[in-house]
């Protein structure tokens, strides 16, 4: 059972907003007392997902939440876009695969950086990526 302690949803349509959002996420992480290494991992993961959202779906929204499960506290991020969607998620999660001209570490790398990772996508409707980073995870 995951409880939400505090949350807000922010829009993301411009490149410059990525930095503001990163700072917002950092504030949340600092508030629950997350260590520097986990903070950096979380923000890097968020940065990857935000970049994907801007690049492939022309933006969307990011929900930032402080959550708790039992004794654990953590940060949950939900990235929602109404882009073209990902036809083959298994392929997109593979290391080194990219439809854009990037390194293809974004999605698989992001999964390694966070504690929990969930991706749902429907072609033509959009993509929702949910990640959780536990404070000590």
């Amino acid at each position, binding site marked *: 059972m995951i409880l939400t302690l505090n949350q807000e949803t922010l829009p993301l349509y411009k*490149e410059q907003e990525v930095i503001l959002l990163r700072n917002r996420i950092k504030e949340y992480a600092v508030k629950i007392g997350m260590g520097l290494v986990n903070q*950096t991992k979380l923000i890097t993961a968020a940065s990857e997902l935000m970049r994907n959202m801007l690049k492939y779906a022309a933006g969307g929204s990011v929900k930032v939440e402080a959550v708790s499960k039992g004794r654990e506290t953590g940060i949950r991020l939900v990235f929602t876009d109404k882009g073209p969607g990902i036809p083959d998620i298994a392929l997109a999660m593979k290391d080194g695969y990219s439809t854009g001209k990037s*390194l293809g570490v974004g999605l698989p790398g992001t999964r390694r950086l966070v504690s929990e990772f969930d991706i749902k996508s429907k072609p033509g409707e959009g993509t929702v990526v949910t990640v959780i980073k536990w404070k000590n995870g």
Partner: protein
Amino acid sequence: MDRIPILRMGHFLLVTIQTDLYDRLALELEADLVQMVNKTNAKGVLIDISALSIVDSFMGRIIGNIASMCKILDAETIVTGMQPAVAITLIELGLDLKGVHTALNVERGMAILQAKIREQSDISEETDDEDDDDYPDTERFESSDT
């Protein structure tokens, strides 16, 4: 408009990134740096990222690109001051910055660049004395000529 300043120091170019970069800024830095290497005949480029709190795959790619472009223009690139947390994250992400020289801080980075330049000038001795007047060289570099 925002721009990352590029400073010239003797035969080297010095870039200290003091703010978190968004994509366009990073791409501009890449283009500016390569042009500056060409214009100033720089032999080395030092990029200090000690103020960067994160390096994601895009930023990592830009750093890699800069290093390979400069290499083609016969300039060495060295990246200094990476935060430990950033290094941990980069490896977990799966980026190992191949072909990029790194150093713990600016001081060591400069020493490495200077050592590399000296190696090269030892091979082709006294080639461009006139050129040296244009660049206010560091002491260390002058003493290696005598």
